[in-house]
């Protein structure tokens, strides 16, 4: 099921990338959606494929910390926050 979801999101991202502005006319919003979808996929891989949902609390916290910091930094930068 998780694998199917990952494939469907990849297909949706593929369509979004091939047809820019199909969802949002503003590039910043489209970029944010594409990146958030990617980070959602990453979280699924970490939790289900890498089995972090069954791992020790230390590994859970460390991987979630990496995910949150990376996601916030990359999505914020994609909005051009740092250059404004």
């Amino acid at each position, binding site marked *: 099921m998780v694998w199917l979801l990952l494939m469907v999101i990849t297909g949706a991202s593929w369509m979004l990338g091939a047809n820019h502005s199909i969802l949002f006319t503003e590039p910043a919003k489209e970029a944010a959606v594409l990146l958030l*979808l990617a980070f959602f996929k990453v979280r699924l*891989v970490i939790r289900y494929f890498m089995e972090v949902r069954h791992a020790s609390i230390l590994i859970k916290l460390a991987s979630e910390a*990496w995910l949150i910091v990376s996601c916030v930094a*990359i999505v914020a930068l994609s909005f051009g926050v740092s250059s404004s």
Partner: protein
Amino acid sequence: MMINDTTLPMKLNANARDEAEDLPANETIWVFVLGDMSVFSMFFCMYIYFRNSNLELYQQSQALLNLHYGSINTLLLLASSWLIVIAVAALRKGEIRLCRLLTGGAFLCGAAFSILKVFEYHEKINAGISFESNDFFMFYYLLTGIHFMHLVTGLGVLGYLYFTFRPTESATAEQVNNFELSAIYWHMVDLLWILIFPLLYLMP
């Protein structure tokens, strides 16, 4: 063939996963994996920062990439990762033959990724696009190149695992643990590509 219970600690039983990940080796692989992922995150931030400062150049250069290669490669790595997930489950149940078969399948998906990637590099180089062409292509070759090195290492590990397992023998606890650690590494290779793909190929 079932794994002999005397060679496989209860910790590795599928019903006792909560305790299984407390093995020291698992903590060590996570230090490596999260460290590696953090370095990539820094590269991703730098890429986005420089992309914002010269958006037009990056968009024009990105348009020269073949989106479909990136998408197919994403699907290939997802399929490869999923095969390894099932392979780990099969190994824990002692189904070595099935585990080998799935590992072979995962290897082939990874190999297909690398063939497509080499083809893509070849196409770019033939078109006169190199590391020095511009900032976008510097990031393109850097990110995909480092990822490619990770992938080739992973393929080596999968190949080693495939040939190490003898279908007629039962797996030792050490082999099961090594396989689980290799699986974590292989999923990291998939995970990094999941982020590289939208950054280089999809961003508007």
